[in-house]
């Protein structure tokens, strides 16, 4: 790609998507179910990328609020996979250590991955307890948890699994890649 700013190239390299193709028709934002909760709209994210406003984009709430529903991606007249770009932006944001616009969402993802690393599978109860320990919000959904337990939906102990060595290797190379 010629004469583009560093953020456009970084995104193109990581995702294969061409942000320059966006001509601001705003169809992505019009159909986005979570647009109301965003601080910058999906079409604005693309515009900020075109202007190389890296911190604005990486520090936004938007990249964490995107629910990855792909409504934008399928409707873009220029075939830009916007949901995929959101993934790439989250990746770059985590790597760059910028303060996230949404506090709890990145914590959730990191706890989720820690659970896979230690248990191979997601044991929902461990995931919830760990997340609550990190966010110090112990009472939210407590009564719902009890209701679910009574309906036999909460498994108390994680299941045993093989493949621990391979999972360890996958996470080791992920850690190496981060450096």
């Amino acid at each position: 790609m010629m004469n583009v700013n560093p953020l456009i190239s970084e995104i193109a390299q990581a995702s294969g998507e061409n942000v320059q193709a966006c001509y601001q028709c705003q169809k992505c934002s019009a159909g986005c179910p979570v647009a109301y909760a965003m601080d910058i709209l999906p079409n604005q994210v693309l515009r900020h990328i075109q202007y190389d406003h890296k911190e604005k984009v990486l520090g936004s709430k938007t990249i964490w609020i995107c629910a990855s529903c792909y409504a934008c991606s399928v409707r873009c007249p220029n075939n830009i996979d916007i949901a995929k770009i959101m993934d790439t932006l989250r990746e770059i944001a985590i790597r760059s250590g910028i303060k996230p616009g949404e506090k709890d969402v990145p914590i959730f993802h990191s706890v989720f991955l820690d659970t896979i690393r230690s248990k191979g599978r997601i044991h929902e109860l461990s995931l919830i307890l760990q997340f609550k320990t990190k966010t110090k919000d112990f009472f939210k959904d407590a009564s719902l948890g009890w209701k679910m337990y009574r309906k036999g939906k909460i498994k108390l102990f994680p299941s045993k699994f093989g493949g621990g060595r391979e999972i360890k290797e996958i996470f080791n190379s992920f850690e190496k890649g981060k450096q």
Partner: protein
Amino acid sequence: MKEVSYYPGCSLHGTAREYDESIRGVSEILGLHLHELEDWTCCGASSAHCTDEVLAIDLAARNLAIAEKTPRELLIPCVACYSRFKVAEKEVKEHSKKLSFSYQGNVPIRYSLDFFCDEPILEEVKKKRVKPLKGLKVVCYYGCLTVRPPQLTGIKRYEDPTHMDRLMEILGADPIPWSYKADCCGASLVMTRTDIVRRLSGKILSMAKEAEADCLVTGCPMCHSNLDTRQDELGKEVGDHFDIPILYFSELMGLALGHKDTKKWLHHHITDPIKALGGKGLI
């Protein structure tokens, strides 16, 4: 007996156990022998692809490598897992991504709803149906990843899908047209931004109620959990009151095919479906 590989995924070993039990039950009646992948691990789901692409592909591909050892279709009931597997397959096939284990991209990856909508299976369902779901008005809720992105799912009618509606018709139910078939419930934001899930899921239930559905049918454990477990909250959010059973398509298949454990599966729901089905004389 047809042999099929099976990847249940983490939810089906926990909150979505009735989905797992009903998929297994229905498969048995239809002459499908499910082989759960040995030592399967989490696909990375909602979090790996937000963190690191290589990690996301490795976590999914490890399971595909296990599946590839036996030439069989791989049945996946959780649509989030399915989506991650399809991404990994695409990366390996189209971009020849190198992995630390042997996976060539040769496993037919099948999402449960698509799998059970294959013509030969539908023919079998027609033959074995013992209790048509007569008079049961359903709205089919596909959600996001069952249909999008179509480059991965292969679904042609991704804005207005109809395959679950057809399955429901074959079961004898009455699928109602509505406009929230493929809208998002808020999915994994439930732990972190529950307010968003309340608003999105509340809207979906409002529309299901307006369509006068007796129940909503889904094939996604996350959608099921968001819509089934917190109907009081969702009602408060949108100024309404909800009591709409949320059923897995496989549970309704079990009911129509006369599986003896159907009632057991339904007991795991937070919003009671037995009353509504009983009122129609179906249970």
